[in-house]
């Protein structure tokens, strides 16, 4: 298991390194002068030049690349262009909002997807099974920003059941949770469909295996067989799926944060790209990349721990 974990960790380091190189290239290729955009129309050429020097943009590209790489590995992302606040502070201020959003999305997707998938598998071939199948495909097909807009219009504007904007009162967990309901639904709804489909298929496979047949032969209750013996095995692929899903949810979070005017990493990066605030872009993207790689690493390690075949095949 240790060898397996070490190999996965090494691969994660490579992935982060490649992501950093790609990120640097993308930033370098983006047109537009960060100093002009940041300082606005009234800045003189001397002021713009001073800012370029401060941002290290006057250096040769290989020096910029080396500085970027070495600073990033040390965890030093520099300071925000204008407010001069440490980028790491800016990013970690926003990160909890996005993590909460993704956790909410996972809660929706797991909370609804697993029971629906199980139900469909148990009722295989019935109307309920077909209904779950149709609904699953439907929610997968609807983009998260469409869900966000309609959820907002229905539950916030028309019914006024839930708040429309913001992340809730700082320090008031209840208010923050209420503000999380609609955005996390928008982020997680599509994944309800994926997980329901995955769990159904996996359950059908497991329900046909010999140990389940044996359990039935022993006369164990059907509920116990389904949820204790079958689901615990059938759920394994879902863990891997969720690892990948976190990356997708990070993308969906951008839309949810814009539509619901929530703070978060998605909006931070979006705004930073528009204003060419490159230190914030690099800091935020690298932190989320590391987060994504870590989630997948943990998912792989969990799967490896639960299923020895995975360890031996790596």
């Amino acid at each position, binding site marked *: 298991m240790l060898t397996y974990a070490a190999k996965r960790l090494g691969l994660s380091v490579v992935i982060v390194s490649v992501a950093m190189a790609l990120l640097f290239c993308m930033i370098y290729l983006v047109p537009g002068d960060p100093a002009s955009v940041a300082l606005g129309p009234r800045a003189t050429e001397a002021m713009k030049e001073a800012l370029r020097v401060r941002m290290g943009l006057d250096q040769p590209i290989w020096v910029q690349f080396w500085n970027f790489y070495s600073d990033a590995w040390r965890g030093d992302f520099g300071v925000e262009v204008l407010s001069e606040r440490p980028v790491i502070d800016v990013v970690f201020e926003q990160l909890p909002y996005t993590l909460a959003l993704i956790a909410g999305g996972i809660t929706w997707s797991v909370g609804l997807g697993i029971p629906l998938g199980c139900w469909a598998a148990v009722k295989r071939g019935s109307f309920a099974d077909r209904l779950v199948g149709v609904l699953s495909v439907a929610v997968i097909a609807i983009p998260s920003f469409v869900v966000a807009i309609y959820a907002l219009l229905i539950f916030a504007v028309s019914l006024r059941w839930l708040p429309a904007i913001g992340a809730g009162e*700082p320090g008031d967990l209840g208010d923050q949770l209420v503000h999380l309901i609609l955005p996390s639904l928008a982020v997680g709804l599509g994944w309800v469909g994926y997980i329901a489909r995955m769990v159904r298929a996996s359950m059908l496979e497991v329900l046909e295996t010999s140990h389940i047949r044996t359990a039935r032969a022993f006369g164990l209750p059907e509920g116990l067989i389904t949820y204790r013996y079958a689901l615990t095995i059938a759920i394994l692929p879902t863990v891997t799926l969720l690892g990948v899903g976190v990356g997708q949810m990070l993308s969906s979070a951008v839309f949810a944060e814009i539509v619901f005017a929530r703070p978060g990493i998605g909006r931070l990066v979006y705004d930073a790209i528009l204003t060419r605030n490159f230190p914030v872009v690099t800091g935020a993207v690298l932190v989320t990349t590391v987060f994504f790689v870590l989630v997948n690493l943990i998912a792989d390690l969990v799967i490896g721990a639960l299923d020895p075949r995975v360890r031996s095949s790596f």
Partner: protein
Amino acid sequence: MTKSPFHLSRRGVLKGAGAIGAAGLVWPSMAVSQDGRVLTVRSYSDLQVLDPAFRLSAPEGDIIREIFAGLVTNVSGDAWDWELYAAEEMMQEDDQTVFFRLREGIMFTDDYGMMTADDVKFSIERVADPAMESPYAGDWASLREVEVIDELSGRIHLAEPFAPLWNSTLPTSTCSILSRRAVEELGGQIATEPVAQSGRYIMTDWVPRQRTTLVRNPDWPGEPGGFEEIHIVPIEDPSTAELGFEAGDLDHTWTAVSSIQRLRDEPPPGGVVLEKPSLAYVWLGMNQVAAPLDNPNIRRAIQHAIDRQTVVDAAYFGAAATSTGIIAPGLPGHREANLYDYDPDRARELLAQEGADNLFVTLDILNQSERLTAAQVIQANLADVGITCEIKQNDSGTFWTLGDDSSGDYWQQLQLVLSRFSMEPDPSWATVWFTPEQVGVWNWERFDNAEYAQLHAEGLVTQDPAERDRIYKRMQDLMEESGQYVFLTHEVTGVLHRDTFDPGLKPNGEPLFGEFRSA
């Protein structure tokens, strides 16, 4: 100043547990201004800098104005005017001298003592100081010095007359007064931590990208602000803000131009919709060094080919009027009419005269819906006279460097460009960007006219309103005669607010939070 966003308390945990169980239950939505205590307003961007000398956006200026009092401030209403704020008396002694006396007893917070004339001297001179490299140094380019007479009185001495002083310099947040001692202790600049506040409100809390909280300043010696608290929520997208208003989460917001008609016809319950003329100006520019636009007759043909009324109607849903220049109605120098008409036949004639068959031009725009719609109508207008136009959309970071010489060579290829600038209520703020000095900086049309430059310099020192009116009208005539400009619109600002309070707004709809009062 910033709070941990997920600070836990026993009460919070209990409320959270309750909320999870009651997720499907009704969450009561309320208009928070109804109790007259808290007002929730939207700004289109979050604050990044609180230093008056380095503010970046209008929403920052709105906050700075409330927490750091200036000598004077704008008055709400339909005409541009000012009133005393930190000053008890202001008097123009001659063209180059302004006397001021501060109100007695304006206290800086954080134990920085009483506001004095020396603080005024420090605050104004630091903006003007070239070593500070303030982008607003130009506002005080004519400053000689600020003289301190006694603890509360002083004189502002100018090296030469400066006409915009009372319109677009003194009332702006750039002229907010800071505590010399506080700023010096901070090392010369303020970032996002407000210290030594002195205005009608004080900033007590800033949760980045979520909320800025202003609280009524109990020590303010003048008329207090109308609300105990004002919560300023940064929401970039106006449509999201409109939904927030309709859901009861906001009390005041600007609206999208495209929403004005819908909201006017069917305002949300308890909502009031206002339309305010903007000072901003939108125009189609032509780069005179990029062929075929180096030919004045081709430029003139393009001017005649564009149906400005249709462009503006389509882009702004009929809510905005066409403009005659870069200076909005109500300001000195506003022109009543353009020098030419929409005349596609004349355009075809000019193109034929120049032998310009199958002409191809590019039109660069910012990727916003109004600009794209305007560009598409322009494209159709040009096609009607035989010019093929390719629209090139750019994100804001790219767009704002297209014509800048220091940002690459694209300025040589730039042909048509659809631009929008905002401004302060003095015509010099509009004309300054088109001087020869600005060629390749913000003058992307590379309009280079010596008479224009001369008139701009004269306009800055001329005090006679009639003469200024003549100067600025002539400058716009020169722009239009060059064939490099098609003036489109000044746009319109839509404001949506609850009927439970009266918003204090500048004539262009920008908020003066200190003047927001319960109805």
